[in-house]
């Protein structure tokens, strides 16, 4: 499994005596992330609604869904292609339980009932997917989850009583509360930022908590973990449930952002795009999901013009995505994060600069 690499856990074993210097050291080590956080917080002051909504907002939403895959894949060794489907389930459920343009199906519950119920159903779905595929390994997991994802796509396509078939749902408003219209660009941006940061932090935290460490043990050697006394299947299913929670929140945000959901939102292309995002970004670190999502969004937004500018057909976007994906898998299986790590390591060994 070339894609699996051990995660840096050096910050785990911090001696008690150095506790005092720990804060400054932590700041030093996470300087990049802190700068990024500050930039993202003050971004609405300088950027227009297009960048907030269509670039950064979309990046963070896709990043959350890819993050749920990164968690399963990077820490659990399970490549689940059903994460976009989990997001789609919660997206569909928010349209069914909450308001939409279809009064014959939608129940028009208030958001504070509809959203938790939608997330609950999506997490239940994700857990069932996990339970079905947790007993298998590696490529079998890909096959089963891809089959489940495609089955859900065909279900939404042909089912009219619940999923409204080919048309799906439109006009699904984000809630108004506390006197704020949460679909206005700036409030929506901060809402998305909050949830993206929360899930990023949660994944980082869990990766170092006992559960996450046990999960990484299961990834590296399930048999030995079983022998030590860990319940391997339970750990895997729990990982699926946690990943489903992140994906479900992302799914609801995605629906609110696009204002619609249709079978093609959960189609095979969408499902594969999430995998592409996670792999291109790098599945060894949570930030990879967001890097991959950013690249995808930039390509998706500007590739058309760029392709036309160099004299190619602007519709060849998928070709570009596919080629980029194959090249990354062939030459840098740990994605952009891996390239960055190698560059840093090279700079360190040759320059000899900061010995941190």
């Amino acid at each position, binding site marked *: 499994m070339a894609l699996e690499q051990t995660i840096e856990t050096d910050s785990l074993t911090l001696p008690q005596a150095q506790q005092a210097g720990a804060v400054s050291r932590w700041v030093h080590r996470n300087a990049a992330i802190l700068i990024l956080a500050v930039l993202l917080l003050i971004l609405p002051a300088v950027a227009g609604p297009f960048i907030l909504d269509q670039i950064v907002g979309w990046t963070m939403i896709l990043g959350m869904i890819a993050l749920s895959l990164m968690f399963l894949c990077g820490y659990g060794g399970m490549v689940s292609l059903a994460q976009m489907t989990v997001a789609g389930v919660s997206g569909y459920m928010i349209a069914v339980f909450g308001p939409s343009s279809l009064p014959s199906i939608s129940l028009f519950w208030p958001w504070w009932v509809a959203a938790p119920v939608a997330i609950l159903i999506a997490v239940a779905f994700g857990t069932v997917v996990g339970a079905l595929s947790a007993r298998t390994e590696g490529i079998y997991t890909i096959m089963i989850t891809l089959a489940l994802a495609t089955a859900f796509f065909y279900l939404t396509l042909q089912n009219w009583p619940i999923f409204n078939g080919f048309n799906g749902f439109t006009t699904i408003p984000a809630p108004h509360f506390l006197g704020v219209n949460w679909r206005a660009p700036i409030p929506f941006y901060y809402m998305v930022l909050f949830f993206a940061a929360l899930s990023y932090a949660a994944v980082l935290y869990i990766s170092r908590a006992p559960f996450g460490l046990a999960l990484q043990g299961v990834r590296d050697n399930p048999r030995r973990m079983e022998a030590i006394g860990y319940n391997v299947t339970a750990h895997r299913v729990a990982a699926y449930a946690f990943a489903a929670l992140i994906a479900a929140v992302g799914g609801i945000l995605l629906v609110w952002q696009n204002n619609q959901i249709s079978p093609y939102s959960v189609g095979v292309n969408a499902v594969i795009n999430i995998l592409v995002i996670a792999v291109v970004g790098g599945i060894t670190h949570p930030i990879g999901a967001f890097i991959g999502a950013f690249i995808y969004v930039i390509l998706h937004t500007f590739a058309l013009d760029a392709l036309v500018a160099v004299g190619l057909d602007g519709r060849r976007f998928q070709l570009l995505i596919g080629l980029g994906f194959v090249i990354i*898998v062939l030459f840098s299986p740990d994605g952009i994060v891996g390239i960055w790590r190698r560059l840093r390591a090279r700079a360190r060994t040759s320059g000899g600069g900061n010995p941190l």
Partner: protein
Amino acid sequence: MLPAFDSSNFRRNDGGSSVSTSLSGYGGRPSEGRASEARGDVLGQWIARHPVAALVIAVAVILVLWLVLAPWPPGVEEAIGKKRLFVNALFNGITLGGLYFLVATGFTLIFGLMRNVNLAHGSLYLFGGYMGYEATQWTGSWLFSYVIAFVCCAIVGMAMQFFIFRRMEGQDLRQTLVTLGLSIIFSDLMVWVWGGNAIQIDTPDYLQGPVPTPIIASIRSSGEMVFLRYPLVRLVIFAAAVVIGIGMWLALHRTRVGVMIRAGVDDRDMLSVLGYRVQLLFVLVFAFGAGLAGMAGVVGGTFQSISLGEDSHFLLASLVVVIVGGMGSIPGAALGALIIGLSEQLGIVYFQNYSTVLSFLIMAIVLVVRPQGLLGRR
């Protein structure tokens, strides 16, 4: 491990003579005869061990036979609808199963031998369909289009194995990801060339139209019996799928290459260590599996139509068929294809909004009860 590798190098330099002698020692007729006898015993033992399951299967078979052959009494018609619908769905399901078998068998063969989940298999199916369409447009011969589709897809498959997968042997996950990327590229290239419109391959004149079958569809009030009429081309193609299936079984169990393939499925490293040219075998099997997918594309183009999105449909079909039937098993692919084809077609008639859920449910049940698939081995 290391000494074994040394001896394999030695064996290869040794030339083909030792290889052929060791092979002829393996595949003699008498042992085959004993094997088939043993197989009969296995069936008997299975029945003895699972009397309830055997009874259920026997009852189900008799029930289906009765439903197909007997004219339905009015009570049954009221409960589950017209007999014509049921028998049509049954026939559609079985013939669709034949098509799924053609697609899935290449998939399962490639998987069994190379541990390569070829997620570009659906793209190969679609490519074969388009090439077959082009061939019928140019030559006007429907049969010739199969040859073209087979050859084109086989070349693509060989190229994939030779240029890409050979370089990352043993890295299952990476190979799978590459096939996924290739499927994105292929599907976009095909949209580029053929556009998004559905294309139908014309059925040749000699296979046009329905033929009467000896199955009673309904009885008119006058007492006259109406026999079911069914499209000839679907019956012919189903028969061809059965012939191909039997041919493959014979090829796997009666020829030298077949013995090598079966040995490779069981233990690839051992086969390689014994000095057989595993890489050549891989390329051949990949070419054959891809070619079968291409031929299935022509079948699909004649049965239904080929268009954008059919690649993922048939990838899903192959995945589900192989998961249900058992990965790497050709009889498993046949059984799985039959089950999934039937469940899809009967589902469309009887549970319109949930027909895909039916095949998915079957898959889920199989995964829970028998994770390795119905005829799969651990």
